[in-house]
């Protein structure tokens, strides 16, 4: 039992820092809640098969242990939504725990109460095994919280599918699992670990990549399935294999905890997608036809897509440049994985930020060891400077990559799924010469966006260290002498 609970219960590396959209749970709260949930949960194997909702008897016991009067408990059950959905999924359970804490502190049983800082709920009658667990929180530390998050994902899908966006008790999507964009959790995971197998098992089981169908509510969820889903939404057996890796990665995860930060693989994927729609990376995708169809394939509801567009089309020109497209795609991805859309575009998704970041040398070749089949080099910059070699390699590699289901990264999954949807465009990937592309890429973004020259310098600086950038021998599309001067200045530094 302890092994199972150790696997299922966990704390998240990130706490409530990623935005006020999610119900904030402190570290200790997350720990306690996940412990409690796993205690009330059926064993993980059953959870994987039948959805990890708590059996109501153990939940009832727990609630009674809180020593609140029964009508308060009834109120809590109603407010948290369990009565409405008929069972205690992790979302309801967490809300209920928060409400119990609120009630014990004397606050009324309402959703507003739980938005504040609250002490942990107190349960008087503790079972022996849970006491043992409480006594050894260390063993739970650093283990990712997978199973409840799985159902949280499902809940959010369900809500999305039902168009029920006004759900006041939206699941406490506290970042109890590292967000999908977190690179460290996915990059260094060796490909051979059990996750791939379990995922392919899931695939066979469900007949579609990545759809978490093991939910108690009839989730047709074709939408999320087609467009790729969070890989962590899998059966909990992967927890055990992942826990060790995750612990090491937690320390470096702070940079990548931000779900609105685009990882390298994601960026590459987005860029490839952009290329499939618009071969010239410096031009833009027209909104009315190309982009609209593309994003409609994500099967998100139109109002959400409209909002995503509004957020990402910063210059409001009805077309998406590459950074705008990356931001939009990232928002779609985040939404499909259950994150609520922000009211304003996060800083890490701004076009200036993305452009500045796009050519910085990133965190080393280790990031790409799992992605190296599709990219020749280790670093982001190489993608631009060696595209001529890359393109030739990419085209045969990527189809292989697509069919290869061993990557658990969501990006690869989406490559898998999304490309099934747009196979034609992808196979028409044109091979451009590196010099032209890299020159154009360096010169153009300055003209396209309102980024200042400092960004261009940053881009150039970024390119310099890893590899000598190809000199702009060919005249680039804008034969502006200013560009050449900048480039030569940079190279002499």
């Amino acid at each position, binding site marked *: 039992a302890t092994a199972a609970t150790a696997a299922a219960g966990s704390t998240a590396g990130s706490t409530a820092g990623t935005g006020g959209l999610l119900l904030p749970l402190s570290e200790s709260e997350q720990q306690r809640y996940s412990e409690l949930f796993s205690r009330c949960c059926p064993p993980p194997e059953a959870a994987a098969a039948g959805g990890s909702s708590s059996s109501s008897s153990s939940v009832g016991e727990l609630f009674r242990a809180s020593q609140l009067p029964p009508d308060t408990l009834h109120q809590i059950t109603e407010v948290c939504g369990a009565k409405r959905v008929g069972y205690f999924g992790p979302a309801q359970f967490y809300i209920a725990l928060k409400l119990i804490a609120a009630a014990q502190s004397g606050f009324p049983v309402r959703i507003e109460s739980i938005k504040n800082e609250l002490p942990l709920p107190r349960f008087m009658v503790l079972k022996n095994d849970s006491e043992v667990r409480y006594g050894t929180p260390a063993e739970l530390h650093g283990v990712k919280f997978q199973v409840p998050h799985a159902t949280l994902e499902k809940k959010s899908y369900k809500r999305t599918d039902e168009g029920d966006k006004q759900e006041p008790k939206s699941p406490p999507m506290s970042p109890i699992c590292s967000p999908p964009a977190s690179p460290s959790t996915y990059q260094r995971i060796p490909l051979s670990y059990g996750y791939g197998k379990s995922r392919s098992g899931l695939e066979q089981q469900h007949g579609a990549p990545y759809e978490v169908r093991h939910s108690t509510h009839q989730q047709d969820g074709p939408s999320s399935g087609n467009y790729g889903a969070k890989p962590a939404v899998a059966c909990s057996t992967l927890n055990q294999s992942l826990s060790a890796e995750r612990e090491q990665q937690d320390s470096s995860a702070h940079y990548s905890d931000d779900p609105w930060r685009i990882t390298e693989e994601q960026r590459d994927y987005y860029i490839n997608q952009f290329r499939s729609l618009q071969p010239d990376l410096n031009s833009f995708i027209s*909104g*009315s*036809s190309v*982009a*609209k169809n593309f*994003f409609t394939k994500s099967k998100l509801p*139109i*109002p959400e*897509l*409209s*909002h995503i*567009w*509004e957020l990402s*089309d910063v210059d*409001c*020109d*009805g077309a998406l440049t590459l950074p705008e497209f990356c931001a939009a795609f990232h928002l779609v991805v985040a939404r499909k994985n259950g994150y609520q859309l922000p*009211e304003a575009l996060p800083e890490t998704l701004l076009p200036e930020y993305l452009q500045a970041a796009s050519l910085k040398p990133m965190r080393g070749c280790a990031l790409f060891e799992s992605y190296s089949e599709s990219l020749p080099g280790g670093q982001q910059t190489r993608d631009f400077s060696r595209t001529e070699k890359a393109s030739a390699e990419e085209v045969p590699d990527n189809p292989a990559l697509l069919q290869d289901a061993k990557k658990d990264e969501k990006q690869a999954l989406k490559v898998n799924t999304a490309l099934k949807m747009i196979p034609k465009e992808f196979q028409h990937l044109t091979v451009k010469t590196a010099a032209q592309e890299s020159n154009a890429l360096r010169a153009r973004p300055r003209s396209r966006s309102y980024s200042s020259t400092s960004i261009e310098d940053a881009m150039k600086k970024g390119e310099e260290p890893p590899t000598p950038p190809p000199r702009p021998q060919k005249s680039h599309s804008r034969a502006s002498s200013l560009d050449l001067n900048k480039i030569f200045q940079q190279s002499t530094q």
Partner: protein
Amino acid sequence: IPVSVICFPQQNYPLYIRSIPTENELKFHYTVHTSLDVVDEKISAMGKALVDQRELYLGLLYPTEDYKVYGYVTNSKVKFVMVVDSSNTALRDNEIRSMFRKLHNSYTDIMCNPFYNPGDRIHSRAFDNMVNSMMMQVC
């Protein structure tokens, strides 16, 4: 300070309604609707495409309350109607014009969104934020 902002397309159904005091909102709706007649009258009278028109000093129509209704028509016959409280005499003509210009710009931005079908109700958060800031700015 606009008390109410309503936007109509050519077919004269509301695309967007926002009012500050939620009580008596119906009264504003009714007033704005009647003002549409005046708008149409002015459009037909002008003949050419007109950009900005101020209209309907309703100061006397309802002696109990005093408020003014302003109108604005775009080239595509999209009408913006704004109800302002007359007691706020500090509000000058150019301020009204600038508010209409902001509305028009935001409307254009919405049009750029491929997921927006012209004729749909406007649900854009950016538009809402802009209108809110406009309504709050003089408060």
